């Protein structure tokens, strides 16, 4: 028995000594400046923009920074958006965080206490006045700025003009209009409304959140005072359940966009990232897509257009904050932003000339360039008129699953809207409790 214990003990000792207690590593604080006063740093940047055009932006950024500051060396960590939080969490938890990160939703990294507040760094070139307010606000938490927005993501619903014209339907102005339009399309063998309810639940939640916002409700507000609004939203979806494709329960964006491209769907949600998503499916879809503000619901008086952002954040544990800020400055220059914004949608900054964006867009989307620009403008107009910052919900990933599950079962007619509400409410309250 003792022999066994001794053996186990020795094994543990060996393992721990070899593991070297990863955290207690005494990494020496590297100097930000060399003797000549020049900035010196090796920077690691998490860059989830992995399409060809976004990697071009990365290459240009590297070139620009390294030529301006010969002591700075940039290393990109390319990875996909869906993997980024996991890798970031592991790195931060291991005390080895990178220096900078592209970010869409700052909620989790802020909760991890991983990000550097940036208010102290702002200057004449980068400050609140130079950016779209909703995008700026989206990168803030509790009034503190944690990332500088580069792209503005404007989410809205779109309608299929071809179908709407063919069946004489006007652009909906109330929820009832949406419902009747949806019914009409269904009667004519089309899907009135479609959403991507598969995968991890992100897209289902996004759609749900957009409709909720237009009823003046944020989906994590499940208290009694919001019960009525909540039920209105659920009843809305319930009313059009029969008009939606059954198979959407397994869909993510690629399948949803495929259905859109096939011309089978009357209304869906998307955003100003639309072109990049739909372009593989054919160009015809660009001509018959029109963004519109989802009408105000019974409890609201005006539509709300959700505006998110893609920004650049700095890590609290970065050892080269001064150099890291230089990178942010370089990225926020008009030519870099034009390159970045033009290849996807639109920038969050107001100092980039439209002509520059359009020039980039033309090179990225040569066949649908005009349509792309027209759509982008439409989205920008919507954002100006109705834009609100995308709500930041702590532990949204967990709530996504709760909402997805309840929504799917309600749409399959397995539960009533009232039961769905109870399920969502209990689920979300439990998540908040923890």
């Amino acid at each position, binding site marked *: 028995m003792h022999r066994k214990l001794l053996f186990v003990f020795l094994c543990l000792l060996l393992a721990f000594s070899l593991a070297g207690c990863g955290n207690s590593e005494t990494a020496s604080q590297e100097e930000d400046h060399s003797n000549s006063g020049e900035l010196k740093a090796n920077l690691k940047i998490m860059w989830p923009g992995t399409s060809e055009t976004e990697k071009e932006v990365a290459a240009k950024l590297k070139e620009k920074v390294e030529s301006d500051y010969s002591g700075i060396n940039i290393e990109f960590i390319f990875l996909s958006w869906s993997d980024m939080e996991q890798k970031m969490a592991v790195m931060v938890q291991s005390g080895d965080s990178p220096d900078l990160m592209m970010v869409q939703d700052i909620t989790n990294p802020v909760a991890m206490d991983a990000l550097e507040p940036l208010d102290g760094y702002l200057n004449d070139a980068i400050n609140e006045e130079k950016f779209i307010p909703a995008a700026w606000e989206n990168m803030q938490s509790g009034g503190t700025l944690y990332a500088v927005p580069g792209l503005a993501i404007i989410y809205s619903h779109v309608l299929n003009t071809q179908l709407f014209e063919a069946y004489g339907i006007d652009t909906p102005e109330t929820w009832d209009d949406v419902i009747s339009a949806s019914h009409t399309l269904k009667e004519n063998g089309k899907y009135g409304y479609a959403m991507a309810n598969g995968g991890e639940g992100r897209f289902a939640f996004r759609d749900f959140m957009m409709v909720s916002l237009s009823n003046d409700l944020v989906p994590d507000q499940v208290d009694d005072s919001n019960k009525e609004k909540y039920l209105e939203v659920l009843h809305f979806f319930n009313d059009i359940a029969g008009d939606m494709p059954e198979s959407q329960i*397994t869909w993510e964006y690629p399948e949803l966009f495929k259905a859109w491209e096939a011309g089978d769907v009357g209304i869906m949600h998307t955003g100003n990232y639309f072109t990049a998503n739909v372009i593989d499916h054919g160009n015809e879809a660009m001509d018959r897509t029109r963004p519109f503000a989802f009408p105000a619901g019974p409890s609201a008086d005006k539509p709300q257009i959700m505006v998110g952002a893609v920004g650049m954040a700095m890590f609290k544990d970065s050892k080269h904050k001064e150099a890291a800020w230089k990178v942010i400055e370089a990225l926020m220059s008009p030519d870099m932003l034009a390159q970045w914004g033009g290849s996807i949608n639109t920038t969050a900054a107001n100092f980039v000339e439209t002509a520059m964006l359009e020039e980039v867009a033309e090179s990225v989307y040569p066949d649908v360039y005009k349509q792309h620009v027209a759509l982008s403008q439409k989205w920008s107009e919507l954002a100006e008129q109705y834009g609100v910052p995308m709500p930041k919900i702590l532990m949204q990933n967990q709530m996504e699953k709760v909402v*997805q599950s309840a929504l799917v*079962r309600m749409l399959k007619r397995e539960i009533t809207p009232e039961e769905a509400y109870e399920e969502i409410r209990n689920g979300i309250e439990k998540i908040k409790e923890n």
Partner: protein
Amino acid sequence: MVAVMGVDIMFDTIKLNFKKFNIAYMFILPTLLYLLVFQIYPLVESVRLSFTDLSFIKPGSGNYVGLENYKELLFRDPNFWTIVLNSFVWVLASTVFQYALAIPAAVILNQKLKLRFLWRGLMMVPWVTPVVIMGLIWKWIYDGDYGLLNYYLNTDIVWLGDSTTVWPAVLLASIWKGLPYATIMVLAGLQGVPYSLLEAAYIDGCSKLQAFYRVTIPVMMPILVVSTMISIVLTWTKFEMIWVLTAGGPGVETSILPTYIYTKAFQNFDMGVGSAVAVLSMFAMIVFVVIYFKVLYRLNND
């Protein structure tokens, strides 16, 4: 005095055993050392975390909470037991079907065929195709509106969305993915069957099928036992195929233990609970392994 004698006896047995089995100890040592160096720390750390409330998104968490995570999972989590059940069914069905197909597949590939090397090579295809792409293609096969399966069957079933078809659908994809492994193992096992034994069986008047049951299968038994065991353990811990097809959803409907671990640990950032799921999962596996060997032992003795 007694203690000293005990120690003496202990050392004697060690010496004796060492002499008798010196080569065995010598041969197993590298493996043990490797695992001690590279596997023990992560393992111990995971078990330790299961007794803490560590959450990445709660700075300052990571305090000892005793059995709290386990109580939460076993008694209060409404999903946990469904997921455990899902896992058992998933593992059993995957393994049984995989081998039910792999044995005939290996027998075919063991015949004298034209271009046999090519067929054996192609057999590997599902195993080596990147899972992310396979997820894409299987989803397209199963899609309710634009799917290949519905197109050719002339149906409109949402294969991955209907609670009656989702498990068979995911299972088929998983069997497809796992078939090459099982087939290769059986194929390798078939090579070890001495032809002289088969010949003897034929002389005794056995048909090919009878010879297969009476000679081939018994000779291959150790390999079958081990490789099915490994299949079970791997299916128990791997989840890529389910993840790319349904992500364990909607909700947790198609979740199994490993997807649950992933969700808890890296989507909810709740390492404490995630680790506790992993520890419970290990215990469940132990039970499974023990039952498996008991059943086999009984079958062997009958």
